[in-house]
């Protein structure tokens, strides 16, 4: 991406810059989502006064204050905790978030690694976080944490399947697993000969989109699928013993993953960074700048849907949660794949 500047800066430097961008992107995305939805949208929906007050205008200072609070908290580790695992667990959770961002394209050349199996890779690394969750729950030496971690493990296994199966329809239709390829397919497609809108896959894969959103909500352990953290019964589940900066890591992991899943959904179903009408090949530099903004807008829309559900619904019970995944989502996803396959062959 940097040869546009007519500089030859070697692959090591390029890799370093890309790593820095991804490293900056996760906390930044988490902050944006945390600020926009957790603080502002929730305050408006729930008539909360607190987060709208600090700092004068619209409570802009609240997030800064929260950050300072987390940083100055004492770092407490339970006496019987498995110290190394306990310290490592938050890093593992955040790591999986970082890895997802590697493949999401934000412009013709704005992508860290343009993998041929991008979809497969993104869904695979996103489920790595369950290892961190299990580590956290086990190492905390706390019964609530163990219950939460085991619930998280069961839940993530159950909802990984509909998540993957929902995307299979997209892959069948676009005949590629490369995320740039999927974006190109949606940009260049036509709906009954009308090419003005491009061909966002939500038009044909609306079932897949709905399944993806439900499963992503469960992967993020957000209400109505927040059994693992259930603050009214398990207090905070696997995070119960974490304080200060380590807790902040879980927080960043949660919201960063929400950002990543919203990015995936926007790329897979809503056309990604591309805008119909215009061909990005004309001016690649312009689209390297505009593309991320377009993607950001779509990400915020998808995240809005996620957080809307989060602030509206109560929580399912663990067995009801499993029943929903195995009895409804997975069969529907399989039927969707079947229908997509049949239609693909027929047309």
């Amino acid at each position, binding site marked *: 991406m940097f040869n546009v500047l007519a500089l030859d800066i070697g692959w090591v430097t390029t890799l370093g810059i890309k790593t820095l961008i991804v490293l900056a992107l996760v906390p930044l995305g988490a902050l944006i989502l945390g600020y926009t939805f957790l603080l502002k949208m*929730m305050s408006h*929906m*729930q*008539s*909360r006064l607190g987060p709208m007050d600090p700092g004068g205008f619209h409570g802009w200072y609240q997030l800064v204050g929260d950050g300072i609070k987390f940083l100055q908290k004492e770092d407490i580790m339970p006496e019987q905790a498995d110290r190394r695992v306990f310290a490592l667990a938050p890093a593992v959770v955040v790591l999986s978030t970082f890895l997802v961002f590697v493949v999401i394209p934000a412009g013709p050349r704005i992508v860290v690694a343009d993998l041929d199996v991008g979809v497969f890779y993104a869904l695979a690394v996103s489920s790595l976080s369950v290892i961190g969750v299990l580590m956290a729950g086990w190492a905390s030496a706390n*019964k*609530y944490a163990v*219950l939460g971690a085991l619930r998280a493990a069961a839940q993530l296994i159950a909802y990984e399947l509909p998540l993957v199966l929902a995307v299979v329809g997209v892959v069948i239709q676009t005949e590629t697993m490369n995320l740039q390829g999927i974006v190109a397919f949606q940009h260049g497609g036509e709906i009954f000969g009308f090419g003005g809108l491009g061909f966002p896959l939500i038009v044909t894969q609306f079932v897949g989109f709905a399944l993806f959103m439900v499963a992503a909500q469960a992967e993020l352990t957000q*209400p*109505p699928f*927040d*059994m693992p953290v*259930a*603050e*009214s*019964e*398990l*207090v905070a589940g696997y995070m119960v013993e974490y304080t200060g900066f380590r807790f902040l890591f879980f927080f960043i992991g949660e919201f960063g993953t929400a950002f990543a899943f919203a990015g995936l959904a926007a790329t897979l179903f809503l056309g990604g960074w591309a805008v119909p009408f215009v061909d990005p090949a004309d001016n690649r530099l312009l689209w390297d700048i505009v593309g991320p903004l377009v993607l950001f807008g779509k990400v915020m829309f998808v995240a809005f849907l996620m957080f809307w559900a989060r*602030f*509206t*619904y*109560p*929580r*399912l*019970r*663990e*067995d*009801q949660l499993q029943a929903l995944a195995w009895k409804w989502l997975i069969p529907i996803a399989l039927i969707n794949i079947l229908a997509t396959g049949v239609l693909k062959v027929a047309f």
Partner: protein
Amino acid sequence: MTTTPPRELPEFDVDSTIYKHLADSQMNVELDTGDMILNIGPQHPATHGTLRLVVRLDGERVIAADPIIGYMHRGYEKLTEFRTYPQITTLINRIDWLSSFANEVPFIAGAELLMGIEAPPRALWIRTALTELSRIATFLLFLGEMGLQVGAITPAFYGFRDREYVLNLIEASTGGRFHPNFNRIGGIKDDLPWGWIADTRECMAKVLESCDTFEDLVVGNPIFEQRTRSIGIIPAELGAGYGVSGSNLRASGVDWDLRRDGNPHLPYDQLDWKVWTHPDGDSFARYWVRLQETRESARMVLQLIDGLPSGPIMAKVPRIIKVPAGEVWVNTENPLGEMGYYIVSKGATGPFRVKIRSASFSNVSILPWLLRGVYVPDVITILASLYFILGDIDR
């Protein structure tokens, strides 16, 4: 006399199947995870304070639950023996701190009965209005709180917000948001302030609207129904046997309300209202009944302020209150259930002995029976739907 020879000890080359079997049983023992004992409380967000539940779990299923109370015992029954009658209302305000005003009413009514004083009608009507207002405040909090315990945060904030309007009314008339300490033997402390009636009318409209919101947001939510329907069913006879009272018992289909069936010492018989019951007896029924009762109370308050009689607010009461010797039992329908005081007087300025029957104590006594065999998330739903206040359990 013959004795059977002692059996020979098995030698080393015994049938290997025995050892196989032993190995199997060993394996079973290793795979059996055993029960886990989980302490829910005394510091736990779902227990509203310091109730402790020792729960024996098999996986997520509760085998046995044991409520342990007493972390908040403040000895009010003993303390009343060292206070004068007007001082005691300060204490009993703090038994059920969400509906403090309703706590005062039966005690004052008991003292009035012993002294043979009758409060003037205006005082009684204002008492009734404030009792119903504190009922609304308590139930609005419940309607939100239950949503929170089931996992939805939004209703909790709505509940707190709307309760604030009602608390403002109580504060405007009594001067206290939580602990009004407003009843006096023979009447009430002050008359209503200017503009209170208009404010109340406005506020009751808000409360009715808020009840509709809860009906849409919580009762109409399929996940909420899934979480509460047929969870924690209290059969009517069993509930009555345990002493469960109030909305919890009415949700089991028992048509029994002390405001209508007992002597409430308040003019409920002059109002047009209805006792709500639900046949199911589960957590959902308890939520539904309280929602209807909130509406009913708001309608009652509207009737009360419309028909408020004029006249004095205090009867003629001696300057130093001495209650003649005697015993009296007064129980009324508090927001949490039946609350009663047994007052024994020996003719002094303070009571000789007071026994306080608080609703929550009996309501949580059914927990060991009710929690057997449910899942951990249902424990929280059942606790929330029984709706107890720790001060009301431990006194």
